[in-house]
């Protein structure tokens, strides 16, 4: 039987005013964690707030794993306030993660904002698998974060910032289009805000390149039972409401119906 875990916070690092990381112990009986999978975190032990917060894995080590979290509201703030040594209750890993069985070397990783964190673990896994670094295109509004850690998993990181504070001024799609123009690309793996997912998908469609998108939706159960987290997905000629938590959170760009 699967279960939830009370995990000790082994380390905690503040990356910026908005973003922090926690390192959790990984229990021996926890199933393997795939990049793109996520956990449902209980923000506080006293039962409030009620629902779990879905947070993706940003790095997996031998006996621990890392979560990178953006401060949004009360739940993430309560997690932020937890101290090293305290525990946090998690459900997971849940979801499918990225589809990597047929991963090809000529692929690109794209992340935006807090969405850089799930693709960091993806970069790590792909680097291990192919013994090579994948191009990583990261978009930020302003000051980038976590680049030091990220650079361990790829030496081919390119940055775009909306403010122009560093890297190319503008969006990751500009960086991506360069690659699409110049090289034969197999797959683009993406995580980021909704508008970015859509822009990347539309761009890749034009170049006939496959995309895998990590979709976000508000959740309750996190395991596929309650049907609150749906995403409109094309299946043949039909449009179906699939569950982001269970059927996703990663979907092929070709399936996702953006404007419902």
């Amino acid at each position, binding site marked *: 039987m699967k279960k939830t875990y009370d995990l000790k916070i082994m380390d905690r690092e503040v990356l910026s005013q908005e973003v922090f990381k926690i390192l959790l112990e990984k229990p021996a009986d926890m199933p393997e964690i795939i990049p793109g999978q996520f956990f449902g975190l209980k923000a506080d032990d006293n039962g409030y707030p*009620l629902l779990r917060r879905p947070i993706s894995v940003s790095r997996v080590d031998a006996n621990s794993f890392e979560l990178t979290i953006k401060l949004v509201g009360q739940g993430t703030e309560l997690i932020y306030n937890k101290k090293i040594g305290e525990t946090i209750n998690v459900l997971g890993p849940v979801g499918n993660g990225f589809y990597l069985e047929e991963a090809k070397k000529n692929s690109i990783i794209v992340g935006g904002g807090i969405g850089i964190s799930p693709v960091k673990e993806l970069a790590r896994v792909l680097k291990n698998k192919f013994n090579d670094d994948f191009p990583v295109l990261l978009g930020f509004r302003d000051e980038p974060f976590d680049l030091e850690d990220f650079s361990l998993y790829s030496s081919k990181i390119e940055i775009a910032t909306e403010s122009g504070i560093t890297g190319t001024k503008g969006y990751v799609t500009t960086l991506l289009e360069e690659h699409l123009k110049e090289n034969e690309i197999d797959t683009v793996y993406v995580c980021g805000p909704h508008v970015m997912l859509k822009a990347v998908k539309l761009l890749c469609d034009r170049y006939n390149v496959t995309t895998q998108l990590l979709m976000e939706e*508000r959740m*309750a159960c996190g*395991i596929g039972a*309650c049907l609150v987290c*749906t995403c409109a997905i094309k299946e043949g000629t039909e*449009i179906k*409401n699939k569950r982001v938590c269970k059927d996703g959170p990663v979907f092929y760009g070709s399936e996702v119906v953006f404007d419902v």
Partner: protein
Amino acid sequence: MSNPIMKVDLNGLVLHNPITVASGTFGFGREYAEYVDLNDIGGIMVKGLTLKPRAGNPSPRVAETPMGMLNSVGLQNPGIEYFIEHEIPYLRQFNTAIIANINGTNIEEYCEIAEITSKADVDSLELNISCPNVKAGGLAFGTDPNMVYKVTKAVREASGNKHLIVKLSPNVKDIKEIALAAEEAGADCLSMINTLTGMVIDINSRTPILARGIGGMSGPAVKPVAVRMVYETAGVVKIPIIGMGGISNYKDVVEFMLAGAGAISIGTANFVDPRVTKRVLNDLTSYLKSNNIDNINDIVGKVIR
């Protein structure tokens, strides 16, 4: 002390323990089967079913509220035929009652699905006349005593002698008159409460969080309303009641049963702890033992006034 008797008989529907799971919160059991042994659950109210498959409402379909949540799933389900073919055989592997939550948009549809489902291998029909998340039908049927009587009566006739539960809405002025209408029309049992309608607005986007605007509130926040309604209803009807609304631990179960519920249902709490059903069963058993209560039925309706 030996183990207390947990079996309850809800006017013909026998559950090996009083802990069921609420419709729409447990799917068809498949997902939670990875977390709990379904044999430990008295009965499963499956996701609300309709004649044809339904896609449900657009996302977002959930908004958190203080100790509660709103949902606006809108009865997404694969349709009754699929359920009969694929989900009943799956659920029948387990020693748990199958309770089919049935929905329609008009009386004819309610009767049609009732007729089909009553012939299927389910233990009970739960007539949902209280879904706030669909345009037609649902809540409209459940908030007016005359309509409750009419639809219950019709479904009663359409479903042979299948055990029939009527699920009541809390969005009413007087739950007693609604409950009495269902009882008079032939319900074998009542389940209550469905969700209270509510709304959350995101002040940044200035839009409601739910794509549909309004949704149904569940979770601990609604528990006092549910307990009150079970209590009031138990005072006027003779048929048993399955109590629900915010139950998340054994104390809540005892509270509902003292108020008059013959069995209970756990919904939202599954989302918080996927093993809550088992935990509650264990704790409830310990509670009964340490209080020398040898039959769970001995606490039903035993609130002292």
